[in-house]
């Protein structure tokens, strides 16, 4: 085990970033024109980084596996984006956003990074509005805010239930503008399969043209991965079908440490699983918890319809257990509380693995306000409900429609049934303050890195981090590295390192085609997902994790000897793409279990059953585990643990309480 250097600048946390920006080495415009940067991924982090780097004058190549950069999964984010603007005059500040994020992450993130994130959050909103992103507004024409979990201020900006879509289309527009000007070369339907290293530095990638199957070599003075999270290791998650860990995993194999892989976020409000056929799960935005109250019946195995259960026989368990934050506790807390009730036999619906999210009380409240605005100060209940439904529809219409479409039930009439589902991964490639991995010249931004959310991410902070990294952080920090690369001429791609990397990628593809086994890729993926969900999901214990590791090792053997990939490697072949991704998920799954086993404490989304308070809350062990676990891939399924000690100089580390 050895220590790793996070390269945090000296000085007070409030001035580190300003000082860094003023003293970082610069690259002059004529040198920028000859420096090439590869950006893999076109989500919020990738698209904003690619566009900004090109605006600054660098030569940029951007890659995505979808048919257009606008499809990246950031588009599906619903609820909002946080920023410390204090537009609501409710006492928000950079420090408070910083504090909430550190606390929400259960004191397992790096102070300096989080402070910087809070600092640039306000710039993101300014930038997006300037781009024409239509964020929600009040009647006075100013921007509106709403509440999200884990905070007591309203700092979340939004665009109905389509915030991610609108922010991504903003970044996509900026990217397309640079593509139109010839400053970014865009490669759609391309998947990165290898990192190319020359003399220890990242110097390019091998990408597969998914239409022709051709392997391509691309040089870059630096490589940026903005390739998203690895939630699909669970097979069922709220991620898009194509979301994968392959780019990050290949980087790990080339020496980039993978940090805190066991930190996964299980989101409390998703539509429950309905059957074996299910291919993905759908989130119902956290913003619904602004106006929805979560409850289960007080009676066990109650089979009555929700509407038949009287008020005093309902258990609003979040309000009961956490009076200060109520329905707006952080996601990990809300998810575990739902699991606790269902495990105890109070779940609802046919599977009994669901709780109610009920809008009735707030619908009536809104209706009363609307009636009062219209001069009716004593409205009857029916009037309140009618007027209130219109308000609810304006706020959440698209989410309610989506719910009705998927479940066949009308959420305006009956409460929604919800259950936790895998949603986000806080772990990712280890990066220093500059967002550089342990491979020089290889950077990682957005959900793909581990940096800002500790053991639990607060709602509306993923969009904030993706855009902070891409617009405001990486374009500065990468200059530090590139300023020393100005004398390096573009390396021709007939260099042996490119040939070797291409051969590695080709070997794996050919192997899959040649196995000609009996079971589809999905068969193995579903099996992996089940192991992960049951043994490395919302609750974990040593025994379960050990057996999960053994099961995954067996699954890996079976996969590599019995998977059936139809067609060939030199054509458009989605099954072949999936095979490569699932192979990497299997290896990552094993590492996640190892990491979860190593972390003998509970923190945020990582809940070890052996480590809990009497009230069933997560029990941290700050003396022994206040560190980032960064795993070095030593080949053949072996990993070496490196630790980055976390120092809390500005926030007093404490037991997290939302009571």
């Amino acid at each position: 085990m050895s220590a790793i250097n996070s390269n945090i600048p000296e000085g007070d946390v409030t001035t580190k970033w300003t000082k860094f920006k003023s003293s970082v080495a610069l690259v002059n415009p004529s040198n920028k024109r000859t420096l090439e940067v590869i950006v893999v991924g076109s989500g919020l982090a990738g698209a904003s980084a690619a566009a900004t780097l090109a605006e600054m004058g660098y030569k940029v190549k951007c890659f995505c596996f979808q048919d257009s950069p606008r499809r990246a999964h950031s588009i599906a984010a619903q609820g909002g984006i946080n920023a410390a603007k204090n537009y609501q005059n409710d006492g928000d500040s950079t420090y408070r956003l910083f504090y909430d994020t550190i606390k929400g992450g259960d004191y397992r993130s790096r102070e300096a990074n989080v402070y910087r994130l809070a600092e640039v959050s306000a710039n993101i909103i300014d930038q997006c509005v300037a781009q024409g992103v239509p964020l929600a507004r009040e009647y006075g024409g100013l921007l509106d805010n709403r509440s999200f979990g884990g905070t007591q201020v309203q700092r979340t900006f939004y665009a109905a239930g389509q915030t991610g879509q609108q922010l991504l289309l903003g970044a996509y527009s900026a990217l397309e503008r640079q593509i139109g000007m010839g400053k970014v070369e865009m490669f759609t339907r391309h998947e990165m399969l290898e990192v190319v290293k020359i003399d220890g530095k990242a110097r390019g990638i091998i990408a597969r043209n998914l239409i022709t199957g051709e392997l391509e070599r691309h040089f870059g003075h630096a490589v940026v991965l903005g390739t998203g999270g690895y939630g699909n290791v669970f097979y069922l998650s709220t991620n898009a079908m194509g979301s994968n860990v392959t780019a990050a995993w290949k980087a790990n194999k080339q020496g980039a440490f993978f940090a805190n892989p066991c930190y996964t976020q299980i989101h409390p409000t998703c539509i429950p699983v309905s059957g074996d056929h299910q291919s993905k799960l759908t989130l119902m935005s956290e913003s619904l918890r602004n106006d929805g109250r979560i409850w289960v019946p007080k009676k066990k195995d109650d089979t009555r319809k929700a509407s038949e259960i009287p008020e005093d026989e309902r258990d609003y368990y979040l309000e009961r257990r956490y009076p200060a934050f109520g329905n707006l506790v952080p996601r990990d807390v809300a998810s575990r509380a739902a699991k606790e009730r269902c495990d105890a036999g109070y779940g609802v619906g046919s599977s009994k693995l669901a709780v109610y999210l009920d809008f009735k009380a707030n619908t009536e409240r809104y209706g009363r306000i609307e009636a009062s605005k219209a001069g009716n100060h004593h409205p009857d209940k029916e009037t309140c409900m009618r007027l209130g439904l219109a308000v609810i529809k304006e706020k959440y219409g698209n989410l309610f429609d989506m719910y009705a479409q998927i479940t066949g039930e009308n959420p305006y009439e009956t409460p929604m049934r919800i259950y936790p589902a895998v949603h986000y991964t806080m772990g990712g490639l280890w990066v220093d303050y500059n967002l550089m991995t342990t491979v020089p010249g290889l950077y990682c931004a957005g959900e793909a890195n581990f940096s800002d959310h500790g053991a639990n991410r607060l709602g509306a902070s993923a969009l904030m981090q993706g855009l902070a990294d891409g617009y405001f952080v990486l374009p500065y920090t990468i200059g530090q590295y590139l300023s020393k690369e100005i004398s390096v001429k573009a390396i021709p791609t007939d260099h042996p390192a490119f040939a070797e990397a291409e051969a590695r990628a080709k070997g794996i593809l050919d192997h899959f085609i040649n196995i000609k086994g009996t079971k589809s890729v999905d068969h193995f993926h579903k099996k992996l997902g089940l192991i992960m969900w049951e043994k490395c999901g919302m609750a974990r214990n040593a025994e379960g994790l050990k057996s999960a590791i053994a099961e995954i090792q067996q699954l890996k053997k079976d996969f590599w000897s019995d998977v059936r990939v139809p067609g060939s490697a030199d054509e458009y072949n989605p099954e072949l793409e999936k095979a490569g991704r699932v192979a990497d998920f299997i290896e990552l799954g094993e590492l996640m279990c190892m990491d979860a086993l190593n972390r003998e404490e509970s923190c945020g989304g990582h809940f070890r059953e052996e480590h809990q308070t009497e009230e069933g809350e997560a029990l941290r062990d700050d003396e022994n585990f206040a560190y980032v676990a960064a795993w070095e891939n030593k080949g053949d399924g072996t990993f070496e643990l490196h630790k980055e000690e976390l120092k809390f100089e500005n926030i007093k580390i404490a037991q997290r309480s939302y009571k």
Partner: protein
Amino acid sequence: MSTGNMNLTLKVWRQKNTQDKGKMVDYKVADISPDMSFLEMFDVLNEDLITKGDDPIVFDHDCREGICGMCSMFINGRPHGPKDAVTTCQLHMRSFKDGDTIVVEPWRAKAFPVIKDLTVDRSAFDRVIAAGGFISVNTGNAQDANNLPIPKSQADAAFEAAACIGCGACVATCKNASAMLFVSAKISQLALLPQGQPERYKRVQNMVAQMDAEGFGNCTNTGACEAECPKGISLENIARMNRDYYSAKFISEEEG
């Protein structure tokens, strides 16, 4: 493995690559659950084809929650199938009956060549956006967001236009394969906002020129695009685009 009891006949377009002529092929699927999405029904069929040693059907899809715009099937003569205001991934099998025959084709338009089976190339949309679907503001140049109040009605109208997911259903359903609804949605979003004014007339000319260059057809006011749009993008956007386009002609002539 499926859990339902619907048995269906599918007639699906199979085409090996862009050069191949392509043809309709019949498939049977059994035990389909009404709770499955249309794409999950295709997953069942593909699993079956793989097990039998056949080539699975290639189709575009990603988020499966109706927002990425990637899925694109022409089902029984309608883009995204029989239900209004949903994408194919959000279409569920309860919209069909046991024993139905369902015809599934790719988007068909000159500007969207078929890549394989049900997958088409929609990169023409990206090139139209690259021609002007943006506000030219580099990172770091923005003023405080609340320095520019925008009336709520105007912001809401811009948002409605911005809800377009770029799926191409409008092109697929149009007898002229026109992209006017898509192009006008972006033009409207930016034309409705104060930030979009400086480039308003240059934008409409550049985007329309690129749209024409890509081989999309013209608009003959049929309105099929609006009827089939999964996000309810309004025809009013096309009217606004046309107004701006003709205004731009006069303005540039005066300026020229």
